[in-house]
């Protein structure tokens, strides 16, 4: 029962402190009597009273501050600020919204013209100077089919001539070699000059061997190999030349019938050219 009563008393306290209770209201007396007996409500009353006096002090502080303000001037200030704002807004409103980024309207044509010239310049430069990146041309793009065959034929002819020269030189060299170590032919093989001839022929031989796909050379490949071996042997010969070595080479040439073969091949090539 006491609990309920305390609750009710709290309600009366709030009314009392916020001035809602008239002085003659009997509830005020009830509250006062209760506060004398109930320590808990007494504590609560003290706190609520402090809350009210604190908020009243805040109100007093507000009044004190309000005394220091020139309210007429303040009202005029607010009104003036709004008028300035409004004027600014009105002067701004005639301009289209997209022009805000440009400094002023006078600049706009100039800026637009500059941008136009810039774009035009880039376009003209593109038309005049632009070149597509070049890729290397394929052979069939340069020559027509007939032309290509012609080139190939020319190449073959040149190779054949070279080869004829090579075979002729080789025949002469081998003939010189065959005459060595006879009773009277000792002077025919002079070391230095012969070696130079052998080396020149070796170079040519290497050149022919570099182009294995040439159909003209396929038929003589084995012969060329043999001659190459022989030429290397001849490079190895001494300055004076030992007859034993030379006779070994001469035997090899006779056995393989190299001179005969060379002559036949030479003839064969010459025949094809005609």
């Amino acid at each position, binding site marked *: 029962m006491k609990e309920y009563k305390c609750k009710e008393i709290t309600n009366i306290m709030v009314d009392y402190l916020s001035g809602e209770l008239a002085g003659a209201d009997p509830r005020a007396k009830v509250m006062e009597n209760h506060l004398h007996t109930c320590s808990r409500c007494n504590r609560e009353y003290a706190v609520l009273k402090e809350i*009210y006096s604190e908020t009243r002090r805040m109100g007093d502080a*507000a009044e004190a501050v309000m005394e220091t303000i020139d309210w007429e001037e303040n*009202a005029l200030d*607010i009104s003036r600020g709004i008028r300035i704002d409004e004027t600014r807004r009105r002067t701004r409103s005639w301009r289209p919204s997209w022009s805000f980024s440009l400094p002023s309207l006078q600049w706009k044509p100039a800026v637009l013209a500059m941008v136009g010239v810039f774009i035009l310049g880039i376009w003209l430069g593109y038309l005049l100077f632009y070149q597509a990146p070049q890729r290397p041309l394929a052979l069939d793009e340069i020559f027509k089919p007939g032309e290509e065959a012609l080139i190939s034929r020319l190449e073959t002819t040149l190779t054949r001539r070279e080869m004829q020269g090579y075979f002729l030189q080789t025949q002469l060299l081998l003939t010189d070699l065959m005459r060595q170590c006879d009773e009277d032919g000792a002077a025919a093989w002079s070391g230095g000059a012969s070696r130079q001839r052998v080396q020149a022929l070796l170079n040519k031989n290497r050149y022919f061997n570099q182009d294995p796909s040439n159909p003209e050379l396929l038929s003589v490949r084995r012969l060329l190999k043999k001659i190459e071996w022989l030429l290397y042997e001849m490079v190895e010969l001494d300055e004076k030349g030992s007859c034993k070595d030379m006779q070994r080479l001469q035997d090899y040439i006779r056995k393989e019938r190299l001179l005969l073969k060379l002559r036949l091949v030479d003839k064969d090539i010459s025949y094809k050219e005609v």
Partner: protein
Amino acid sequence: MVWYNGAMKEIQELKELNDAESRKENELIRQVQQGDHDAFTELVALYQRKVFKLAFGFFQDKDDAMEIVQETFLRVYEKIHRFEHSDTDSPTAFKNWVYRIAYRLCVDFYRKFKKKKTDDRELYEFYENRDRETTNPESQMDRLHFKHTLRKCVKNLSKRQQMIFMLKQYSDLKHEEISRILNISVGTVKSQYHRAVKNLGKRLLRAPVKGMEIE
């Protein structure tokens, strides 16, 4: 009977005065809606103190309160064209509308900028001024602590209770006026106000507040 007649006459005069004020206010609003700046200045002069008091209750700071006053009337001016008002409406409709705007601005402003600033500044001011105070500095300090705790407790109330407590305590508004500002019934205002005060009392009793002399 003479005193009764006199009193009735006085009441009649007061009522007429109120009606005249209300009519004048309506006229001012109409003029502002037509773009009259002087009329707006008069309207500002009528309500700026009330707005200031409410804002000062919130922030306990002159500059902040003045800012709220300015911002409130800027909003009022922007929206007054949409404010529909007739003589048959409640005479306090405009006042309530202004209060609503000011209150919302206070809440927004507090949420954005003022979360912790106020308490620190008050402590600083206290230390700055305590030598000049004639009263006992210790009890001053206790009061300050009580003030801080009270403010914290008010901030911890539910939104509606907080609103009603502030409007009642800081702006000296009646329950009827608060009910019109917040668009709720007078009964709700009363019960919520009671609940707010009781909640504050409970919380402050629980919080260890120094300097609370219990009689």
